[in-house]
C-alpha cells in the first residue's frame, strides 16, 4: 500500500494556495471598465509613446506624421482613405492646444489610416485589420484625453472595447486552459489504459493501478471544466463569442452554425461526453478491483469488452469535444484533423504523466515489479506519440499555409504574428527536444532522462493548449503572468492531491490480472 507522504501533500496544498492567489490576483487586476482597460494598455505602451512625444516643433511633427500617413496608405487600393486622412491632419493641427497633443493626435490618425488600409486591403483579412487595430488603439489611448469630438472617435471606442474584452477574458482563459489541460491529461491516461486493456498488452498490467490513480482526476477535472462551460453559457465570461447574442446577431457565419453552436446543446453534449468517460473510468476501476478477489476471469473479460466499447465512444466524443471546447473559440475557423491533433497532444501528455508518476513511485520503492523495460516502453510511447503529434501539427499547418485560403490561414497568420515564440517554441519542445533526447535506447532507460524529456513534453503541450485558446480569447494581449502560472500551479496541486490520494486507496499491484505474471517479468 502506498502512503501519501506528508511532504508531497503539503507541497500540493502550497501549489494550490499559490495558484489560487495568482488566479485571484489576475481576476482582481483585470479591468472592469473600458477606461481601466485603456489605462492598462497605455501603461504597457508608455515607453514607446513617450519617445515619440519628445520636444519637437509643431510644424515638424505635422509634416512627419503626414508623411507617415502617406507611407502607410501608399499601397492601399482605396485612395479616398489617404486623402481623407490628410485633410484630417491638416484640419486638426491649428485646432489643438499644445504641440505634444498635436503630435499625439496625428500619430493616432496615421495609425488609424494604417488600420483602415488593412481593412481595405484586397485580402479582406479582417483579423489582421483587427490586430493592427489594437496597436493603433494602444497608441491612441495615451492621446485620448488630449482631443475629443473627432470623426474617428467611434473607431477608437470600438478598439477600446475590443481590448477591454480581451483583458477581461485573460484570467478566465488562463483558468480554462489549465483546467482543460489537466482534465485532458487524465483523459489521455484513460485512453491509454483502455488501449492497454483492449490490446491485452502483456507489459503494462503492473502499471494499471498507477493509470487508475491518474484517471481518478477525471471526475473533479470534468466537473471544473463543466462549471467553466456553464459559466460561459451564463455569460460570466466571453471565451466563446458565439454564446454572445449581440455577436451572433451581426454574424452570418455564426448564425449558420447556431444549430450546432448553441448554449443548451453545447452543455448537453459536454455532459454526455463527461458522463461517458467517467462511467467507463469508474466501471473499469471497479472491475479491476473485483478481479483481485475473484476466482475466475469474468471481471477481466468485462473490462476487456468495456475497453473496446469505450475506445469507440472515446474517439467520437473526443473529436466532438475538441470542436466544442477548443475549436469553437474561433467560430469562423475550422479544420478537419483538429480532433486528432488535440487527441495526440493530450494522449502524449497522459502517457508522459504515467511515466513521471511511475518513476516517482518507483524511486520511493513502491513499485517492486516495475523495471527499466517498463520505463523504456513508456519512453518509446512518449517518443512515438510526440512524433505523431508533430505530424498532425505540421499536416494541419502546412495544408493551410500551402493553399493560403484567407478564411483558413488567418488562424496561423494571427499565431505567427502575435504568438511567434509560443507557436514555434512548442514545436521545439514537443518535437525537436524529445526526438533528440529519447531516440537513444540507453537514454530511454535512464530515469533522469525520461523525467527531463517528460517535463519538456508536458510544458510543451501546455503551450500547445495555450496556443489553441489564447489567440481567440485574448488576442495580442497575451502574457504568461500571475494568472496563467497561478492556474497551472492550482490545477497541478489539485491533480497531485487527487491522484496520490487515490493511489493510497488500493495496493499498487493488480493481483489476479491474467497478464500480471508476464508483466512482472517483462524484459525488453
Amino acid at each position, binding site marked *: 500500500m502506498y502512503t501519501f507522504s506528508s511532504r508531497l501533500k503539503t507541497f500540493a496544498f502550497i501549489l494550490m494556495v499559490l495558484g489560487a492567489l495568482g488566479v485571484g490576483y489576475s481576476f482582481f487586476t483585470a479591468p472592469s471598465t473600458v477606461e481601466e482597460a485603456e489605462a492598462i494598455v497605455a501603461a504597457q505602451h508608455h515607453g514607446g509613446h513617450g519617445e515619440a512625444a519628445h520636444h519637437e516643433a509643431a510644424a515638424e511633427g505635422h509634416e512627419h506624421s503626414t508623411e507617415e500617413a502617406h507611407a502607410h496608405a501608399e499601397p492601399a487600393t482605396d485612395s479616398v482613405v489617404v486623402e481623407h486622412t490628410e485633410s484630417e491632419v491638416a484640419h486638426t493641427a491649428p485646432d489643438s492646444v499644445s504641440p505634444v497633443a498635436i503630435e499625439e493626435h496625428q500619430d493616432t490618425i496615421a495609425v488609424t489610416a494604417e488600420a483602415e488600409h488593412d481593412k481595405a486591403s484586397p485580402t479582406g483579412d479582417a483579423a489582421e485589420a483587427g490586430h493592427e487595430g489594437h496597436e493603433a488603439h494602444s497608441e491612441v489611448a495615451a492621446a485620448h484625453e488630449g482631443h475629443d469630438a473627432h470623426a474617428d472617435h467611434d473607431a477608437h471606442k470600438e478598439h477600446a472595447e475590443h481590448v477591454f474584452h480581451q483583458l477581461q477574458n485573460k484570467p478566465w482563459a488562463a483558468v480554462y486552459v489549465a483546467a482543460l489541460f489537466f482534465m485532458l491529461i487524465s483523459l489521455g491516461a484513460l485512453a491509454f489504459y483502455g488501449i492497454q486493456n483492449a490490446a491485452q498488452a502483456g507489459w503494462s498490467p503492473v502499471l494499471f493501478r498507477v493509470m487508475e490513480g491518474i484517471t481518478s482526476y477525471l471526475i473533479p477535472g470534468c466537473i471544473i471544466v463543466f462549471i467553466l462551460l456553464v459559466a460561459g453559457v451564463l455569460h460570466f465570461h466571453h471565451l466563446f463569442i458565439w454564446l454572445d447574442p449581440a455577436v451572433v446577431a451581426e454574424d452570418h457565419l455564426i448564425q449558420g452554425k447556431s444549430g450546432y453552436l448553441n448554449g443548451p446543446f453545447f452543455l448537453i453534449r459536454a455532459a454526455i461526453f463527461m458522463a461517458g468517460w467517467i462511467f467507463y473510468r469508474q466501471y473499469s476501476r471497479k472491475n479491476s478491483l473485483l478481479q483481485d478477489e475473484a476466482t475466475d476471469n469474468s471481471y477481466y473479460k468485462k473490462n476487456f469488452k468495456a475497453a473496446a466499447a469505450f475506445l469507440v465512444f472515446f474517439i467520437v466524443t473526443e473529436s466532438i469535444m475538441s470542436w466544442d471546447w477548443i475549436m469553437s473559440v474561433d467560430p469562423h475557423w475550422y479544420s478537419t484533423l483538429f480532433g486528432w491533433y488535440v487527441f495526440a497532444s493530450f494522449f502524449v501528455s497522459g502517457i508522459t504523466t504515467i511515466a513521471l508518476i511511475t518513476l516517482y513511485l518507483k524511486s520511493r520503492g513502491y513499485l517492486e515489479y516495475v523495471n527499466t523495460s517498463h520505463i523504456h516502453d513508456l519512453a518509446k510511447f512518449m517518443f512515438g506519440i510526440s512524433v505523431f503529434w508533430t505530424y498532425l501539427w*505540421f499536416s494541419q*499547418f*502546412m495544408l493551410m*499555409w*500551402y493553399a*493560403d485560403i484567407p478564411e483558413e490561414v488567418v488562424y496561423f497568420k494571427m499565431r505567427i504574428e502575435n504568438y511567434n515564440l509560443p507557436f514555434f517554441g512548442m514545436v521545439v519542445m514537443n518535437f525537436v527536444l524529445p526526438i533528440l533526447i529519447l*531516440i537513444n*535506447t540507453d537514454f530511454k532507460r535512464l530515469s533522469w532522462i525520461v523525467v527531463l524529456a517528460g517535463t519538456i513534453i508536458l510544458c510543451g503541450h501546455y503551450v500547445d493548449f495555450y496556443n489553441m485558446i489564447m489567440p481567440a480569447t485574448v488576442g495580442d494581449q497575451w502574457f504568461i503572468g500571475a494568472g496563467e502560472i497561478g492556474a497551472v500551479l492550482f490545477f497541478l496541486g489539485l491533480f497531485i492531491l487527487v491522484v496520490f490520494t487515490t493511489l493510497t486507496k488500493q495496493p499498487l499491484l493488480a493481483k489476479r490480472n491474467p497478464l500480471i505474471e508476464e508483466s512482472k517479468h517483462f524484459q525488453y
Partner: protein
Amino acid sequence: MSNKVLHVLYNDDDILMDAVRKTRAAHHHIEEVFTPFPVHGLDKAMGLAPTRLAIASFLYGLVGLSVATAMMRFIMIADWPQDIGGKPSFSYIQNMPAFVPVMFELTVFFAAHLMVITFYMRSRLWPFKQAENPDVRTTDDHFLMEIVVNGNENELIAFFQETGAVEVKVIEKH
C-alpha cells in the same frame, strides 16, 4: 600445424543457450554459432558487442537531411527563385513548409538504404557470394557451435558431449 576446430551440433535452442553459457564459463573460445533462426539472447550469452548500426543510420539520416536542404535551397532559392503560384522564394525558411515532405523522405531514404548497405558490407553479403555453411542441417533444424581446438582434443570432445550435443565432429580447417 593443422588448424583443427570442433563442430558441435544441437537440436534445441534452449540446450544451445545453456551450452554457450557453459562454454564461456569454461573459457573455451567460441569461433562461431550457426542457427536456422534468430535465438533471442544468444548475442548476450556469447558476449558479442552490441551493434552500432543504429548510430550509423542516425548519421546517414543527417546526411539525407543535409542533402535535401542543400539541394532545394540551391534549386528553389539560390539558382532560380521563380515565383511559382505565389510561394515566397526569397529565403529558404520562408518556403520551408513546402520542402519538408522532401526533407523527411530523403532523411528516411538515406537512413534506410545506407544502413542496409552498411549491413551487407559489414556482414559480407552480396549476390554470388559463396555460402559459408558448415553443415546444411543448420539452415533447417540444427544448431552448430564451432570451437577452436587448443590443447587436449579428447577432453574437449568429452566436455561438449556433456552439454547435450547430438553430434561432435573434429574438422580440419584449411
